[in-house]
């Protein structure tokens, strides 16, 4: 090849264990430990058994974290998942009340979730110039609207046969089934995002969609897949929510989308795309869950919990910005 000047370029990666400890994820783990100590001090009932007993309704929400992380890394957003949860729980409940078995309920919940996600993905990839925030705002209203129509005048439905889907409430010792699903999802999704070429394609699309497209990455297929996957996980969330609350109403899943996005952002995933890691989001999710359980045990006002989580979210976004500013100031001073 031409232009050889004998210059060599190093291919040895820099950075070691120090960077790992001082990373955002490292800080989050410390925070998780702090929150748990804080919980134990705050409430005498804050122990493993109680946490595990109260966790199922929070764990279901974490399913969606993994799908949402993909969507955010892509540079997209999906604010319809709360409504998908509502719609799937509603449909599952109605099917169960028609006398159908657990298999049908599972199938309906997951199927409806997947269909909703595919609809989001279809619109987002066919009309690429539309911001996904607006698309999913539209479908958010549509999905909840359908659920409300199905729920009818009362606005709520209760399962007549709560035993039929009892299997979803199964536990291994004190550990609920949903906990295992979260762990399995975490392993799969973290591996896919960090270790596979598919994961890197997500980052490529989120970092520079045009370059990704020019490089031969199937941008729209991957976006469609990711929206569908998130819909499916929202269906899974709806299913487990139904199993732990024995019904659905018009407020089921309200605000879930924002909480899931908050977990991701708190975990270091940028809403602008291309940055962040599910590991951070995963730890952040547990921080929020532990906080909620701790505050719940001392009967703190739920609205106040929201305020605290909101403050934490803003601080978490501020910290990197502030440290960056300080670092660059230091650099200029040195020079």
């Amino acid at each position, binding site marked *: *090849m*031409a*232009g*050889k*000047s004998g*210059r*060599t*370029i*190093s*291919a*040895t*990666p*820099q950075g070691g264990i120090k960077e790992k400890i001082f990373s955002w994820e490292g800080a989050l783990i410390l925070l998780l430990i702090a929150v748990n100590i804080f919980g134990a001090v705050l409430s005498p009932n804050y122990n493993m058994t109680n946490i595990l007993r109260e966790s199922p309704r929070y764990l279901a929400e974490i399913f969606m974290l993994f799908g949402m992380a993909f969507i955010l890394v892509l540079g997209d957003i999906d604010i319809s998942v709360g409504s998908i949860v509502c719609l799937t729980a509603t449909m599952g409940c109605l099917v169960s009340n028609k006398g159908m078995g657990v298999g049908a309920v599972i199938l309906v919940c997951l199927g409806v979730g997947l269909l909703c996600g595919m609809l989001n993905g279809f619109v987002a990839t066919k009309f690429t110039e539309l911001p996904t925030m607006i698309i999913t705002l539209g479908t958010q209203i549509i999905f909840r609207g359908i659920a409300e129509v199905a729920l009818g005048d009362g606005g709520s439905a209760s399962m007549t046969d709560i035993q039929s889907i009892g299997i979803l409430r199964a536990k291994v010792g004190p550990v609920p089934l949903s906990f295992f699903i979260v762990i399995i999802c975490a392993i799969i999704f973290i591996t896919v995002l960090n*270790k*596979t*070429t*598919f994961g*890197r394609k997500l980052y*490529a699309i989120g*970092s*520079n969609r*045009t*370059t*990704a*497209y*020019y*490089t*031969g*990455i*199937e941008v729209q297929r991957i976006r469609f897949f990711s929206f569908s996957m998130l819909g499916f996980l929202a269906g899974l969330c709806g299913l487990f929510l139904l199993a732990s609350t024995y019904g659905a109403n018009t407020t089921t899943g309200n605000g879930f989308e924002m909480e899931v996005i908050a977990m991701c952002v708190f975990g270091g995933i940028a809403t602008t795309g*291309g940055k962040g890691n599910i590991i951070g989001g995963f730890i952040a999710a547990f921080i929020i869950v532990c906080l909620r359980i701790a505050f719940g045990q001392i009967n703190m006002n739920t609205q106040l919990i929201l305020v605290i989580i909101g403050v934490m979210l803003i601080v978490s976004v501020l910290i990197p910005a502030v440290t960056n500013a300080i670092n660059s100031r230091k*650099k*200029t001073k*040195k*020079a």
Partner: protein
Amino acid sequence: MGEDLILELKGITKIFPGVKALDNVQFQLRRGEVHALMGENGAGKSTFIKTITGVHQPEEGHIYFNGKEVSFKGTKDAQELGIAAVYQHPTSYPELTVTENIFIGHEIMKGGIIQWNEMNKEAEKLLGRLHANFKVTDEVGALTIAQQQMVEIAKALSTNAQVILLDEPTAALTANESQELYRIVDELHEEGVSIIFISHRMEDMYRLAQRVTVFRDSQYIGTYDVDGITEPELIKYMVGREITDMYPKPEVEIGEELFRLDNLSKMGFFKDVSLNVHAGEIVGLTGLVGAGRTETMEAVCGITKADSGKIILEGKELNIRRPKDAMKAGIILLPEDRQKQGLIMNWGLGTNVILPIQDELANNGFINNKKEWEIGKQYLEDVDTKAVTIFDPATSLSGGNQQKVVVAKALVQKNMKLVIMDEPTKGVDVGAKAEIYAIMGDLAKQGYGIILVSSEMAEVLGMSDRIYVMCKGRVTGCLDVEDASQEKILELAMEQSGKEVE
């Protein structure tokens, strides 16, 4: 000193974290002269310009304006003295009108109320002086780059600038538009305005400047009279070594037909484009900006889809619906805009290079770091990228080196048969340019077919075997390089100006 200097800088040193961007640099601007500032990317020209306009404050050195020492704490100080800069990518506000852009920051006010009529009249006067062909009420975003530059120049004039800095003013202009800019610079020169301009084009310098100052590696090399310096000499000063042959076109045995387009059409963009490329052949594709060259090539590469026509590679018709189809077939595009289309700027160089083949390097979908790093390193070295590690972000490189990474990204694709290079040397300095031409020549020697899409005549004439010229979406002619000349190409490029694409 006997000379009448309007601006003089002495012993300027500017340090950024870890780099000396300017090292004891000097510069003298005579009143009323046009002075070219040349050097490779990263030589310190931009930093220097920003020192003059008050964006950067130097660590050491003195600035004299009209013989008096001055110091700029910010851009405002420089503006008040009458120093204005026009940048390559106009920094204007696209949603605002021409008048608003010209007077932004120094609106004509009476009692706190903006005097629109007065400002419009003033703006009209300025545009008249530049012989502009647009209205002061036009939105700037709707104007061409050349017209936007005129707005910037008008803005500079509106502040009664005595010194105007032009930063690569012709880089984004077509040949015609460049002529127009030359005329404007000539007129300003006659009016006695002192002008500093940065350009990579030798043509600009010979046409406009009286003197030229060269920087290399953050250092001042010298100031020369344009009349007394030859092109090879100047290149030697800029690059620090002699470039014997700017266009190293190798003798290549032209092979069989490799690629052919039959009446490729896309409504509103191009119509009935037919051309062919042989193995080992470099085919130039030129024309004015907006002639449909890039659009045609994008259809060939699956970025967009043509309405009708045939794309034939090695005798087989291809059905290309998306970029991946073209890449699989062996048609590789080096896109025009390396920052937006070619690279992921905040990613490491190595990952950028191997991105097209990451699936092939992977073990069942799992990233194989070792293999990737090895191949990334190998190809980055092959194209001689100026980088320390393969993990450096693409943003840390100069334009020319970024382009080399784009080339490496194409070369890793082993099944490559046809390479389409869209403006491969745009904004690239002379040293890197020569290296890219050398790579191009090598590829031809290895039997690849090459389509060189370019607006730069010298490059098209210097590197091509045959030259296709497009005008308004149609191919208006094909010239063998022996018969081609700048005049003939321009004639074809502007032919049938009445006909439009249906």
